[in-house]
């Protein structure tokens, strides 16, 4: 089975044509032919995935359950190493990164999960402060920064509540505050709205957009197509169906960035996946401007 993120794959030729090391825009994340095979499973969780994500982008990572969304995020955090292919984050190649450098990498990334992962015996403020305490930030910085970020996520006045006393949406805001408090370059969100009702989800999405506007790259794995439709951002689809025809397709929402500035937004037809992409792009759930390539 061939899986490939077509648009960036196509673009690679153009970009490398200008000479190695020359990057026309600041890349935060780059995957080259990444395959991840778990020993227990015959089918790869990710199969030959290549993609690039720019600094400040907001990207949706979509795909059915088991399509490798979580694996994708785990690989970016170096929780796992790919079976083959290279991954670089912020210019550092993860494959060759030694173990002791991993914490440094993770300090540049924030994570949010479907199940919030808050410490239930600590207050909201303590939960956020925890992320700074364990990376040795001075107490006075923590005292200054934590209220700021709580205000930003809309939880001022709830600093001393316990997570159990908060609604799901509020808990996710705490988790986002914790992920963002150290001003990461990248925010990874794994189904952050998976446990929330649509209205609450909308609030969370507004918050993620706001974080994105501060220059933080946001990568959000989701299978909530309503959100993907309404946001009009770039979409990377991971399609893990074990059929050679339905491989990996990526679409770029035109709203994500001006098409003229970004050659990747220009439609490109790829013969191997053309049929499949045509059917996808005609599907009503895709945002206008999403072009299967």
């Amino acid at each position, binding site marked *: 089975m061939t899986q490939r993120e077509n648009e960036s794959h196509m673009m690679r030729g153009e970009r490398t044509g200008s000479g190695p090391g020359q990057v026309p825009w600041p890349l935060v994340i780059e995957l080259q032919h990444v395959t991840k095979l778990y020993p227990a499973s015959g089918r790869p969780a990710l199969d030959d995935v290549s993609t690039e994500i720019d600094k400040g982008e907001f990207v949706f990572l979509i795909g059915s359950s088991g399509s490798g969304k979580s694996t994708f995020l785990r690989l970016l955090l170096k929780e796992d190493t790919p079976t083959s292919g290279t991954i670089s984050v912020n210019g550092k190649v993860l494959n060759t990164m030694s173990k002791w450098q991993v*914490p440094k990498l*993770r300090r540049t990334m924030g994570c949010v999960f479907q199940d919030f992962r808050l410490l239930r015996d600590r207050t909201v403020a303590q939960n956020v402060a925890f*992320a700074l*305490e*364990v990376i*040795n930030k001075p107490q006075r910085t923590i005292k200054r920064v934590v209220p700021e970020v709580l205000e930003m996520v809309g939880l001022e006045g709830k600093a001393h509540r316990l997570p159990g006393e908060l609604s799901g949406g509020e808990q996710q805001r705490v988790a986002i505050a*914790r992920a963002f408090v150290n001003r990461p370059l990248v925010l990874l969100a794994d189904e952050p709205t998976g446990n929330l009702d649509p209205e609450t989800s909308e609030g969370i999405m507004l918050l993620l957009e706001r974080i994105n506007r501060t220059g933080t790259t946001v990568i959000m794995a989701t299978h909530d197509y309503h959100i993907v439709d309404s946001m009009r951002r770039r979409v990377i689809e991971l399609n893990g169906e074990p059929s050679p025809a339905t491989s990996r397709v990526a679409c770029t929402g035109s709203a994500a960035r001006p098409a003229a500035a970004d050659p990747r937004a220009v439609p490109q037809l790829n013969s191997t996946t053309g049929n499949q992409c045509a059917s996808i792009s005609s599907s009503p759930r895709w945002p206008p401007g999403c072009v299967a390539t």
Partner: protein
Amino acid sequence: MRVNFVLSEVATGLRRNLTMTVAMILTTAISLGLMGTGLLIASMINEMKGIYYDKVQVSIFLADEVTDEQRAAIEAELESSPEVRSFLYESKDEAYERFQQQFSQQPELVENTPADALPESFRVELVNPERYAVIAAEFPNGENGVDKVADEGDFLDRLFGLLNGARNATIAVAVVQALAALLLISNTIQLAAFNRRNETNIMRLVGASRWYTQLPFILEAALAGLVGGLLAVGGLVLTKVLFVDETLAGPIKAGIITGIDWGQIAWTGGIITAAGVALAGVAAYVTLRLYVRL
């Protein structure tokens, strides 16, 4: 490193696993206590060896019916022998006196021994204590007024064999107990890591260093090792005060065995406490590396 943070993590960890912590401390304490006892026996053996082997003698016991000429002949032969450094004559009365002194703690034994039951003897100190056989050959048993030639070294070898056996047995039990303590520490740390997986997962995700994540667990084990070590030292102190200084007071006074002074207790206590802390810490570290993904 935020000391407060790490210490509060350690305290939480120990409190959450109170029963396991207690078990870990007790096993460690017993193991270290036995280890300390073994070390003390070993140092006692060394001191006693110094005392006894310095005085090691060959005793030539004379027969009851020995004549004055025979006694004089033996004395002359000893004087001329190049193997003999010095010798001492002990009459029946002197032998009885020494016997009374040696067994003053057991008056029944002294009472039941007639004054002339102990033979007269020559106590011979050899130039080289291992050349006992030469002397034994010079004075054949049962001839010329000699009843028996006895090598006290032989007795000492058996005595020290016994003491060494006691030491080895103590240390063997200590080692087995230490193994149990190590496994218990390993289990406790795994349990502690499981109990705190939420915290440690978050720590890993936000980029806390490995050291930061692992240190609370290692300190937890090391603290248990320290407490275990201190309990073991307490046990040694009690053993000295209640057993060695009380029950063994007589033989120590008589110079049969050596006592244990506070310096030895302090030295041994330091060693076992350090060993407890180090072993527990290393066991925790290895556990975290092998069984827990931190």
